């Protein structure tokens, strides 16, 4: 073929005006030039064989490692070196040589394909330099900010630490005080308790007397009611009309059973009725009530058949609002709408009968004792509440202190902050060390895209990514999760969000906290191949 040994065109380097071109076969980097000596047999770089030099770049692959064809596409594993004067040199797979697509900015990969490539190296170099410069500036400023953040974090940390120990001391005092108040309370409660019990006892005795009297009256009333023939005796026959008294519940009150209830006799008078009364009073139904004691009818069937006027009921019920679709996100909403809430209860609790014989009020002495005890209780509760508050504060500070806020605490300031990003459809919210969420712009509730999990960067830069997981579940899928990638920036901003896989979100977040110490200026301006 025609491309046995093509030299890199001198004119190219001339017109670029700098970088001395050294003759070497096409596609060979300067660093390997010495292996390609013109007119000397070429040994494949893996040493596998030696071929005449005219087989270098002759568009036929002789070396297994592809080293004989650095400038053609003949070897499947070859690579081509673009000098890219004005920009960065690079290697491309040799399959990209003469494929009609411009890969090297210096156009050298398309020397025989008919593709018209523009040399864009200078422009790319300029852009690259601008970009690097910009990044350097950002990094510089960012790094300064980071130092401030670190200092601030350190200050805050110390402050918190100080506050914590102060609170822990306070807490001890408060605990002691609480114990003292507990004793006071217990002392005050003892006489209160005794007085209240006395009062209660007196009232219960009185209640018992009243109750016995009532029973007696009832017994007399029943006797009269049972004594149908008004002969002053209640007989077995009279009793038998009350089948509810049947002791074995077989539905009939036999003579023998009735006799048994009357204490083994055929009839009793009012004075000896008491024995019988004891055994029947639980079951006895007054004759005046018996008729109205019918059982309540069963509750009416209230469920209505669901009206079935959908044309295709079994598979139609897509909600039209959903056509704008995507998402998924709002399962909970639907679940709410679904609303299988129990119907409001129809049963209002039975109104308890007003306690006619309510306990009489305490006497003045007891009242005084109660008031005194109550005061000690209030004091105690107050102290206990105060202690709990302090506990909560301690816990909260301890929790905050337990977070990994970076090697120098540079992420401390993100704690308890939230950052939002508004897209065409949603507002995304990142609350670092807490959670990520998404809320539709036009109605609908918030979806949890994950709660703080851990730092998730690669080993060498653990703090370059955060992982939030266990968010709202996806249908037939995992729970939502979000990876937050952190990059250096002067401001703390959510730059973008995306959902590369269903329910796996990616968020880009800039913060000075990840800015690295900028390289010294001379490194940046190293001419290199730029």
């Amino acid at each position, binding site marked *: 073929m025609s491309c046995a040994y093509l030299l890199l065109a001198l004119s190219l380097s001339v017109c670029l005006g700098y970088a001395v071109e050294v003759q070497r076969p096409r596609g060979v980097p300067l660093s390997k030039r010495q292996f390609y000596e013109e007119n000397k047999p070429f040994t494949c770089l893996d040493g596998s064989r030696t071929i005449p030099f005219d087989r270098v770049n002759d568009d036929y692959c002789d070396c297994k490692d592809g080293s004989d064809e650095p400038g053609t596409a003949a070897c499947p594993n070859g690579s081509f070196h673009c000098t890219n004067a004005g920009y960065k040199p690079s290697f491309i797979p040799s399959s*990209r040589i003469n494929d009609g697509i411009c890969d090297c900015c210096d156009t050298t990969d398309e020397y025989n394909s008919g593709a018209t490539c523009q040399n864009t190296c200078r422009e790319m170099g300029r852009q690259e330099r601008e970009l690097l410069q910009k990044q350097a500036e950002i990094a510089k400023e960012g790094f300064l900010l980071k130092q401030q953040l670190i200092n601030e974090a350190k200050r805050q940390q110390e402050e918190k630490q100080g506050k914590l120990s102060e609170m822990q001391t306070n807490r001890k005092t408060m605990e002691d005080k609480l114990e003292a108040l507990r004793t006071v309370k217990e002392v005050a409660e003892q006489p209160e308790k005794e007085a209240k019990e006395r009062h209660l006892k007196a009232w219960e005795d009185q209640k018992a007397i009243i109750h016995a009297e009532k029973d007696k009256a009832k017994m007399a009333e029943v006797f009269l009611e049972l004594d149908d023939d008004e002969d002053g005796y209640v007989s077995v026959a009279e009793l038998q009309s009350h089948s509810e008294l049947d002791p074995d519940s077989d539905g009939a009150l036999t003579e023998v059973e009735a006799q048994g209830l009357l204490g083994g006799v055929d009839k009793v008078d009012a004075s000896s009725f008491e024995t019988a009364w004891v055994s029947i009073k639980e079951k006895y139904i007054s004759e005046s009530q018996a008729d109205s004691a019918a059982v309540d009818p069963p509750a009416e069937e209230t469920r209505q058949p669901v009206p079935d006027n959908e044309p295709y009921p079994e*598979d*139609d*019920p897509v909600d039209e609002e959903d056509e704008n679709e995507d998402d998924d996100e709002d*399962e909970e909403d639907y679940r709410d709408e679904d609303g299988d809430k129990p119907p409001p209860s129809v049963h209002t609790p039975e109104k308890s009968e007003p306690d006619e014989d309510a306990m009489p009020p305490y006497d003045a002495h007891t009242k005084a004792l109660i008031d005194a005890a109550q005061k000690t209780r209030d004091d105690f509760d107050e102290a206990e509440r105060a202690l709990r508050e302090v506990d909560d504060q301690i816990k909260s500070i301890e929790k905050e202190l337990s977070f990994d806020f970076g090697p120098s605490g540079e992420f401390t300031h993100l704690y308890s902050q939230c950052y939002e990003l508004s897209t065409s459809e949603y507002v995304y919210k990142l609350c670092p060390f807490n959670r990520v969420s998404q809320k539709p712009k036009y109605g609908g509730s918030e979806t949890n895209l994950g709660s703080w999990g851990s730092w998730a960067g690669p080993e060498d830069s653990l703090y370059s990514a955060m992982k939030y997981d266990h968010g709202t579940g996806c249908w*037939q899928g995992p729970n939502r999760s979000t990876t937050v990638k952190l990059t250096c920036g002067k401001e703390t901003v959510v730059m973008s969000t995306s959902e*590369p896989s*269903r329910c796996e979100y990616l968020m880009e977040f800039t913060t000075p906290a990840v800015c690295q110490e900028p390289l010294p200026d001379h490194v940046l301006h190293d001419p290199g191949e730029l």
Partner: protein
Amino acid sequence: MAAPTDRMGLLLVALLPVLFSIADAVDRSNFKTCDQSAFCKRQRDVKPGQSPYRALLETMELSEARLTLQLINDNNKVRLLLELYRLQGNMTRVRINELKPLRPRYEVPDVLIQEPPTESLLLLERDEHGMVLSLGVDDQRLIINARPFRLDIMDGPKVLLSLNSRGLLVFEHLRLRKDTISHKISSTVGSMWDKIKSVFSSKTEADAEGVENDVEQNEAEKVEEVEEVTEEEEQPGMWEETFKSHSDAKPSGPSSISLDFSFPGVDHVYGIPEHADSLKLRTTDGGEPYRLYNLDVFQYELYNPMALYGAVPVLLSHTAERTMGLFWLNAAETWVDISSSRAVQGGGDAPQTDVRWISESGIIDVFIMLGPRPTDVISQYASLTGTQSFPPLSALAYHQCRWNYNDQEDVQAVDNGFDEYDIPYDFIWLDIEHTDGKRYFTWDPNKFSQPREMLQNLKDKKRKMVTIVDPHIKVDSSYKIHKEIRSKDFYIKNKDGGDYEGWCWPGNAGYPDFTNPEMRAWWATMFAYDQYEGTMDNLYTWNDMNEPSVFNGPEVTMHKDALHGGWEHRDVHNLYGFYVQMATAQGLIQRSGGVERPFVLTRAFFAGSQRYGAVWTGDNAAEWGHLKMSIPMCLSLGLVGISFCGADVGGFFKTPSPELLVRWYQAGAYQPFFRAHAHLDTPRREPWLFGPENTALIREAVRQRYTLLPYWYQLFYNAHRTGQPVMRPLWLEYPGDPATFAIEDEFLLGKDLLVHPVTDEGSHGVTAFLPGEGEVWYDVHTYKKHQGNLNLYIPVTMNSIPVFQRGGSIITRKERVRRSSSCMEDDPYTLYVAVNAQGTAEGELYIDDGHTFNYEKQNQFIHRRLTFTEGSLSSSNLSPDSQFSTASWVEKVIFIGVPKPSAATLRTADGAESPLEFEFDPASELLALRKPGVNAGADWTIHLR
């Protein structure tokens, strides 16, 4: 892309949590069994026995190529008209329709590429029992038996095939509904017939022989002159049918047809796709028949005769001696029963296969393809419905798809990923989410705001894109497509005459009537660059959901009483997807002024769909069983003309293990349509997401595909010219070897490559059958030689793709794999010459511009024969009339299985001779000739001495 239940589940998960409990498999209750399909049940209830049909020989008319004859059903006196044609190429066509139907019955248009040319029929004998006709070829004859009506096709003394031999011809004539006409006319005759009827109906299940029968027939003759059509008993489902909550109004009443075919001596039948089932069809006795009714089946089950997305009513029978085919040209819902038996024939115990076709409406129009070789049957079928369209070369390369690539940035990132990981690909695909609210022909204004810029970026890398265009159109008065269809009145109508509306991705949707040629013509114009805004010539099309899928319709499809002009959806159902793809392909051709070849992928299909593009096996799952099933499914499609077939690599539903994904890439790289695809709810699975090792394995599989693209292209050219499938079951090439008849875990590409993909988890080896007594096969990776006609155990590792090249073949490859196939256009070829036991080999090389119709319209192509015999390899022109120039040349020739030569010389067309350098590896008898350098389109000869 997707089945509806899934997507709806997504929307509805909270509304109906119980309804959508996550199921692993198809919800069978959504789809009818034969028993739930009234006509199928009626027909299947008819048991084999004496046929009530009788040929009225005196009505016979024979013209040059057409014989007509009336048949009468002695039960009801309805007359049918039988038409017989002898077709060119050893085929017989049998048509049966009502002699005087109440209304015309549907006859499938547009599927045959032309009115099939006929040949003259010769009447050999005739008596009162029947007649004998010559079928021209050798001793082939057609015997018509009058009473009962029966057709036998004979080859000498041997019965090849019989029609109605089991008496299952049933033709439900069109009738008026009883409550709409006076019934008195037939009451007198009717009473006479009541007796006979009752005898018949009670006898249908009994042995049809016997005295009683004769009595009946005598009686029947007596009353023949009366000739009154008697009504059959009403049966359930004749005039109305409900399935679940859907009712089918059936204003035309019963109209189904059925006919049985017997194949004496046949044990193996194939075809009637699409089913997720074995290659060799199974008996359906005691089970469900195979069903052909295009349906969107959510999470389909394997080894199941349920209907799927497409239907090709073509069945092949095969024995070591003869292959035949049946093409049942009917587009209505169809069920096919297969039963096999062993009958005593000629003193021996011979198998027999009986096939019964049942369709809901239309006429009986069946093409009997008489072979005798498998390739003959395939050519015969191709002569009827056409061959595989010749795709653009790039469509044979690798396709990267996902539901969904989210936005332009995502597309860009994936595109870059392929370059970064140095994996070639040609097409990136966009599923439904790319549209503006599922309005096809539009772009999401936020996510795809600059489609032309995106397409140009792809074009700059010589890559292409496919967007989805489904046939359901959002009902939205501000949507141009909808407005135009409505204003032109192109929508399918519901039974009451209004526009049919159903639920699909966009919500409420209309369905354009693609059976209407005006509608199709209009649809095609919508693909013009100025109509489909933001498009360019590197954008192609995907037609999904074209069964059609109607989420809230019966069986997730359209109501059968919907109206396509004068025809019911019932009549045309299985054609809908065929027409959608036809119109779309036409659109792509038109937008380029007829210059460029289209590429359209479809999910639904019918006989003839091969003419319009590619199909895939729908919504499969990331399971090993589905990977295995991709082979018989595509083999079955290839047998019925549809070569451009593939399954979603990786599996659509669920998430593949890295091992399954790698194995699927390896298998897919050797199947015709090679596209990875994934469901919306699955994690990303671009090839580089599973670690460097798996990335390397996938890269290698895809690269193997790209090196073989010249061979693939040649196979598709061949498929286009001849209809012979690209992916072939072994029995097609080794028809005499019964060991090949049921093989479905390996296949041939053309006749020269045998592929046995690894389809088992944790596999350490596969056993491949290498066919052909006296054949030799070479492992394409190790060049190790194996004898044919044996089972070979091949140990495998994760990078193994067992592939063998047949000794005696020459395969051309391009070994400089680049980032897309278009980048490889001018690259040189390497020839792999694998010699057979006789030391010879031959092959072909086809080259054209890869994307236009110029090969056809202007004869611009190169087609060469490569032959190696007696130590000389030469390239000669197979098509002297054509002209094309290529920059490609021959960079290397590899001979496998040859002794070491002492010298190799190249002789070019001008007579110049030059020595060639070579390397020889005695262990594998591998000879590599260095750089012949001749142009791929030139004449040349290489001599080995």
